[in-house]
């Protein structure tokens, strides 16, 4: 995991059938950084993530992994470098947690290679870091939404890839587990030098955790860069169409977006630094 893999997209056009959602978009994901994609519903952020993860082939343009067109690479080879947690994976009826997370080891196994202690260890550490080890023998469909979400994250972690793409990994999670998951993803970046890309809903958590933030609107990137540089109330207005005030998060010193809404007019414009 020490080697730095690089993921980028050039002029990609992404969509479903006739409907184009992302047009002529280029992006380079900074390696060894935590990148967060934010935007309103239906702005194309999940579509972009699916495109980057080679789950969706671009109509034109290309996604490059280490300079090679990702759709021309063997999907197995990609899977050893790049892991994805899609938005709506399906848990087969009755499957246990350990079994499901174990399926994340798929790309590391050959046709005839048996399950080894390395696989057990990878599954165990994935379960441990998502706080689901004690669920190992439980059936996935008996878990709560939050537990299930953490199990899916564990499956993506068990894949042990340098690049990890996650589509809304904190949905269904309590605030404590949201923070835990984001802490965990940050650990992966800081201590193991992995590249993590996540689509997040919570703007303030996004600003707090992201090294690099990408704000999207209408299938285009409106702004990208360090959260402190990018997240201004003007950008928030463009992306979410809402008035807000940007203050400093007292805990992390990152920008904190305070939405205003109709019932709370700004009484006194407090100058933000």
């Amino acid at each position, binding site marked *: 995991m020490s080697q730095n893999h690089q993921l980028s997209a050039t002029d990609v056009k992404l969509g479903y059938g006739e409907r184009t959602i992302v047009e002529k978009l280029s992006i380079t994901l900074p390696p060894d950084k935590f990148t967060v994609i934010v935007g309103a519903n239906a702005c194309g952020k999940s579509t972009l993530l699916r495109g980057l993860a080679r789950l969706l082939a671009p109509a034109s343009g290309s996604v490059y992994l280490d300079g090679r067109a990702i759709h021309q690479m063997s999907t*197995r080879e990609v*899977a050893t470098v790049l892991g994805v947690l899609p*938005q709506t994976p399906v848990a087969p*009826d009755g499957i246990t947690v350990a*079994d499901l997370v174990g*399926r994340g080891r*798929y790309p590391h196994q050959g046709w005839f290679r048996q399950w080894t202690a390395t696989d057990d*260890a990878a599954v*165990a550490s994935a379960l441990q870091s998502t706080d689901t080890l004690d669920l*190992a023998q439980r059936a996935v469909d008996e878990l709560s939404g939050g537990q299930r979400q953490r199990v899916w994250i564990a499956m993506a972690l068990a894949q042990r890839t340098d690049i990890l793409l996650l589509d809304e990994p904190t949905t269904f999670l309590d605030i404590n587990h949201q923070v835990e998951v984001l802490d965990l993803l940050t650990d992966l970046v800081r201590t193991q030098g992995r590249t993590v890309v996540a689509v997040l809903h919570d703007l303030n958590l996004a600003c707090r955790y992201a090294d690099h933030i990408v704000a999207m609107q209408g299938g285009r990137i409106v702004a990208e860069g360090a959260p402190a540089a990018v997240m201004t109330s003007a950008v928030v207005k463009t992306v979410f169409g809402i008035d807000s005030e940007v203050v400093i998060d007292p805990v992390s010193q990152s920008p904190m977006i305070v939405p205003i809404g109709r019932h709370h007019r700004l009484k006194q414009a407090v100058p933000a630094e």
Partner: protein
Amino acid sequence: MNVNVQFAPAATVAAARRKLRTRHRLVTAALTLIVLALVAAALTIGDYPLPVAEVVTSLLSPFTGVTDPASDFIVLGVRLPRAITGLLAGAALGLSGVIFQTVLRNPLASPDIVGITTGASSAAVIAIIVFHATGLMVALSATGGAVLIAALIYALSWRGGVTPYRLVLVGIGMAAIAAAITSYLFTRARIFEVQQALAWLTGSLNGASFDTLGPLALGLLVLGPVATILYRPLASLELGDDAAKALGTRVEVTRLGTLLVAVVLAAFATATVGPIAFVAFAAGPVARRLLGPAGNPLLPSALVGAAVTIGADLIAQHALGRNQLPAGVVTGAIGALFLIYLLAAANRSGRGG
């Protein structure tokens, strides 16, 4: 962090996996025993009473050289081929069914429902009623019919890829056409031809012999291991197309490969014994319920299929006194009753599927 702490989680995971593996082995072993017991019963029970000792002597006669023409004919010439045919056909149907249900993510989507068996049936009925064919020709056209309709279904579902949902719907459409052909011929043919066709459509082990078993045996021998190899990508396909792709599974290749295996197995089995009802449908759900969360259902499903087929044939031959019925009449009843029992009683978690 000391070594112990680091080590414990992996042990927990290994323990979880071991537990499932143990259950899988237990279920597989129990099913194997049941199948063996049924084969033994099929070799000893019959109109011509033979003590167990003589059955064993006959079975061993090719090795020992101790022969007895009468009992050798009964055991080696009649009962053994019949039991082996039941074993192989049942296993092939069970395996085929569970593969279809897994790939298409629908417990109803067995080859009998999505058109494969229907295609084989109408091809065979055409051969019987229009061309007055018998034996090998009927078997050949059944195989051809199954493969042809499967190819058509896949081709017609293809639009830059295949989705399970579209495959199922196109399968229903093709099945309807095939069934209409059968119905049409049934209303136009003379009644004795209809009777002959119906006998084939019911499916039976009558007339089983080692001579006609070659393709089915070879098919299982080759495709069984192929299915086992394909199970791992199939297991990631169960997580949904996106998750499977993310794990590096070649989704279309896996889908096509596994379906091909399932189609050929169903085709050979149907050609050999006719479209025996419900084995392909019931084997998967029954095996999955016995396994619980314990993973790979392929071998257990094949064993369930074999057990149901041999057991049904035993009942069909002997339960109703002189009235011998084809096995296909009984498989539906047995498979259904067993599935109903599992649905009602052994349904610990109350879930379906």
